[in-house]
């Protein structure tokens, strides 16, 4: 394998390793600790779940801008149902179902009505976010209406015993994210469903002519993305023990960014779920490490952007060279 191939394949990964090495060197006591990493994974769990769902539609070459407001809405739906006294299992069930249905509507708009994914999901972004505002009256739902069992979920985890004298646990949110990633991995890489999505992404016309039920698959894929967004919304609500009609809005752009970052690791430029995980980690580790280094938050922003560009530059550059 030549150096060019190596860089093309692993450039972004090498960039990620350099970032890790830098923080490890500069934060020898706190960065590469189990505690910090469990923290990071917990902080990133919601983004991870949304990004995993986003990977599903992006495999087909589409994307879903409505995930952020779907997450907000699912939190609000849960908050409203909690306030009305419904039990947790039912509330969670309804919120997840809502996500699935919302995603399916995206799917119908894109595949049966034929609206461009950008227009359809942007309109859905507006609608879902409006719905979240209407349902909540624009207010943050918090305090006594949120059952303690629900908000304790995000604070709990499976105890891993003592590490260096501190009790360490595997956070529940991390576990959820891992389960979702695993499920999406199985779906995309191990099932005929996933293979067909990749086929659609490879050449939609050829896939159709080869007997792939393009429209139905698109619908299902969008529904699953909606489901994952709803799950992330619930995780978020549990973590902040409250629901606010805008709280998911930061997720969309970051989720798409994570998938695109991951795509730089694939030679064919296709999304892969494990690459998405690296993409999410790149985004998250920078925030964690730079905060610990007490870098001013404005300068941190500039650095995050610059570091991302550097991290992907090698792999992109060697991919662009003349064949």
């Amino acid at each position, binding site marked *: 394998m030549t150096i060019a191939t190596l860089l093309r394949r692993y450039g972004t990964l090498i960039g990620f390793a350099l970032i890790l090495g830098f923080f490890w060197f500069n*934060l020898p006591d*706190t960065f590469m*600790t189990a*505690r*910090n990493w469990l*923290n990071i994974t*917990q*902080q990133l769990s*919601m983004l991870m779940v949304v990004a995993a769902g986003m990977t599903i539609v992006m495999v087909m070459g589409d994307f879903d801008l409505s995930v952020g407001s779907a997450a907000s809405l699912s939190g609000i739906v849960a908050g409203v149902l909690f306030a009305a006294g419904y039990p947790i299992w039912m509330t969670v069930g309804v919120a997840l179902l809502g996500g699935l249905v919302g995603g399916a509507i995206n799917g119908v708009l894109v595949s049966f009505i034929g609206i461009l994914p950008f227009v359809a999901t942007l309109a859905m972004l507006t609608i879902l976010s409006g719905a979240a*505002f209407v349902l909540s*009256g*624009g*207010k*943050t739902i*918090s*305090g006594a209406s949120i059952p303690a069992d629900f*908000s304790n979920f*995000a*604070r709990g985890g499976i105890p891993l015993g003592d590490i260096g004298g501190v009790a360490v646990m595997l956070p529940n949110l991390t576990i959820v994210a891992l389960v979702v990633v695993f499920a999406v991995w199985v779906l995309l890489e191990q099932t005929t469903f996933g293979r067909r999505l990749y086929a659609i992404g490879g050449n939609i016309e050829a896939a159709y002519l080869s007997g792939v039920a393009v429209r139905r698959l698109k619908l299902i894929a969008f529904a699953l993305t909606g489901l994952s967004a709803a799950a992330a919304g619930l995780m*978020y609500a549990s*973590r*902040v*023990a*409250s629901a*606010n*009609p*805008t*709280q998911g*809005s*930061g997720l969309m752009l970051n989720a798409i960014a994570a998938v695109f970052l991951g795509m730089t690791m694939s030679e064919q430029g296709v999304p892969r779920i494990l690459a998405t995980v690296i993409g999410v980690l790149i985004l998250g580790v920078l*925030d*964690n490490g730079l*905060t*610990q280094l*007490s870098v*001013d*938050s*404005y300068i941190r922003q500039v650095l995050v952007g610059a570091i991302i560009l550097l991290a992907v530059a090698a792999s992109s550059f060697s991919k662009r060279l003349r064949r």
Partner: protein
Amino acid sequence: QAKVAVITPYMAQPGTQAYVEAFQAVAKEKGWDVNVVDTAGDVAAVISRIEDVVNQGVDAIVINVDPTQVAAGLQTAKDANIPVVGMDAGSDPLLATNVTSDGVAMAETTAGFVVDRIGGEGNVVMFVFDAFPPVQVRGAKADEIFAANAGITVLDRITPDVSDGGIADSRAKMDAVLAANPEPGSIKAVWAAWDQPALGALQAIEAAGRQGEGIVITGIDANPQAREEVAKGGNFEATVAQDFAGIGAAAAEAVAGLLAGTAPADAVTFVPTKLVTKENAAQ
């Protein structure tokens, strides 16, 4: 050297900037190492950053966000025995204290001003933002006061899009309200829960050439742009000055006490506010 982290999702608000500056000024005197973290609106990220700085081993944390929403982070800090002070945040058992101005009192002041100026009679346009609890209570207080005056009708209760700071969208919204209510006198006052919408409304009124109708505009916060407009003596008649610097400094003093081992006496520390009108705006 004591390490203190200040974490807020609302750094874009001029008020927050003023607290943080005053806080930093005191901190500099005391020789602390201050790390200011802005999560740009993301509340869950506040929890994440609290976790990060706890991990880093800071001596105290200051937050400026509803504490019930970041309870997970506050718990982490408590477990690590790191005190957290709220700076205009809200009261919470997990906070050593919350330093703030009295939002309800401010809304009461400006809404009362509006009622007085229009003689308890006419249509009022409100600009509110219920998603942010401290601003939401202002809107609620004003609702209460306007409802108590039978002669006052709330024409529209507008939530502007604040992602751009709030001025431009408020102006666009006000343009539309003005267009829909063309008769002079059909709008008596604009009550805004903070200054940006008031500024936007003012621009719309001036652009529509209706500054002569005596529409009364009030804001809250007394940011510099608002002060300037109030000083001009136009439609923007009043705003309330929170003592941002006072809040920041008081929060710093609370931290200093905690570092020295003395816990603050009360769960809430109020810092006084002041109505700003044409007369005192220039100060």
